[in-house]
């Protein structure tokens, strides 16, 4: 290899390297640009009210939060997700059979959230519910708890 060839190949390698790294960095930047830095979405942890706001018996459905709040005289409070684990439709709780029914693809969940029928891959989530200092109930959707979790008030 003579001097001329050496520089030709070297400069070619530098050029191609610059092109590839430039395109790579640009693509990464585009991907990062498309990922929001801030989500203007409701918080995952929120207060839902005082224990007295919730009746015994059939669960209370909170529309915006998409949760069911169960209150049992002996066992206490429990909070279930109303989002079907299949494709994210909102399930309905039928008091007639004590089960959750999904309108989209017919999944049925038992009273404890486990899948009884249909394409849902896993049980409905139950969320941690605690008592905040101000005496209101605090639900944390980031903390999934077993279905037998209860908060006694």
């Amino acid at each position, binding site marked *: 290899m003579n001097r001329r060839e050496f520089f030709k190949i070297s400069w070619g390698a530098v050029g191609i390297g610059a092109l590839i790294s430039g395109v790579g960095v640009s693509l990464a930047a585009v991907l990062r640009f498309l990922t929001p830095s801030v989500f203007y979405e409701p918080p995952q942890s929120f207060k839902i009210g005082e224990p007295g706001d919730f009746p015994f018996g059939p669960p209370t459905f909170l529309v915006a939060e998409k949760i069911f709040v169960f209150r049992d005289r002996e066992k206490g409070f429990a909070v279930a997700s109303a989002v079907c684990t299949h494709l994210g439709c909102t399930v309905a709780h039928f008091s007639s059979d004590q089960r959750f*029914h999904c309108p989209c*693809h017919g999944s049925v969940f038992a009273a404890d959230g486990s899948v009884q029928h249909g394409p849902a891959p896993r049980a409905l989530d139950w969320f941690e519910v605690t008592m905040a200092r101000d005496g209101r109930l605090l639900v944390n959707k980031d903390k999934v708890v077993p279905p037998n979790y209860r908060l006694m008030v």
Partner: protein
Amino acid sequence: MMNLIREIWQSIVRRDPLSTDKGKSELVFLNVWLHIHPAKVKKENMKFRHTFYLGFITFFLFLILLTTGIALMVYYRPYPPQAYQDMKDLQFVVFMGPFLRNMHRWAAHGMVICVFLHMCRVFYTGSYKRPRQFNWVIGVLLLLVTLSLSFTGYLLPWDQLAYWAITVGTNIGSYAPLIGGQLRELLLGGHSVGEGALIRFYVLHVAVLPAVMILLTIVHFWRVRKDGGLSRPVWKLEPKKTETLVTIGAPAQIAALQAAAASKDKTYGLMEVVSGKPIFETVTPDEEEDTVFSYPYAFVREAVVLMATVTTIMTMSLFLNAPLEELANPAKTPNPAKAPWYFLGLQELVSHSAFLGGVVAPALMVLMLLAIPYLDRNPSRRTGDRKLILWLFTIFVVANLVLIVVGTFFRGPGWALVPPWVHVVAGAE
């Protein structure tokens, strides 16, 4: 004065009169919009019963969608409550609002149907075979872009139908292994369908996807042209070797062609270089008889198809109204919640298994479609030689149709199997 008018006219139209063959050729060559056509076409290739003009119809529907879409943009704000208010304005306040929205809707449905039928036609006539393999691949991509445009457009009215179809649709995507979750987040710009999702779908629908569609369409048309125009009808395929070949557009003797000396008082230009079948095409005598100038033969036919397409969509839009349900309500899923009809086959599969039906099956279908021209090694386009693959494709088409019909007509509340002739009142809340 007359001279000035003549001069202006001749500065615009620089071809010879259309009464001459040279004029007919120049009409095509010298016009930027028409020169995608060849100067001459084969009559038999333009037969209705060969192509059903499905490609033309699809393209014309796309033109309708572009024009009505731009008109609708004037009265649409892609932000949650306003988006739905704007739909109501288009329905009741804007002059010709319902008509334009109906045209956009029915042309969109029509385009999905025609793209699919066009694909079937190309398959059944074996027109994806050498040298057109890659153009089939472009065609499959165009089908995917068409479906993506339909899907992104579906969210824009921000009604119940839109909201839940997109919730279900994007959740299907999240079952894709490894990247599914991030992909959905990127598409929605959040964790659920909300204002971030609406603006992203809007940008995709009015800018990104139409640009991709236009670019791919240009490549698609260019390749059709470079591969010798429309494919030869199957019924015109003859055993090649028994034919005597003649040369059209040039003297029959090749020697005579070489002998013609370049004239000094003319300017020569290279018109185009086409591999395989150039302008001086070697064709069978039967084909030569079949060849006519594109003007007026092809152009008149295209104009008739254009007018028929526009008239049909306009007539439909006068009598059939595009549906608009109530404002999107994240708390209440309609029962049953259904995707747009062309995705109901997918939804039917998804109702059995989200991963197998929603990710594996469609991915395999698309891969299979893309690979068809490379897997099918049989060079013959004749129906008799292709029995097995024709059967396989027919099964594929029928299976898709059956799934869509079941999803559309046989699924009731809770996705239970309910025949369309049984009326069901939705179950207790």
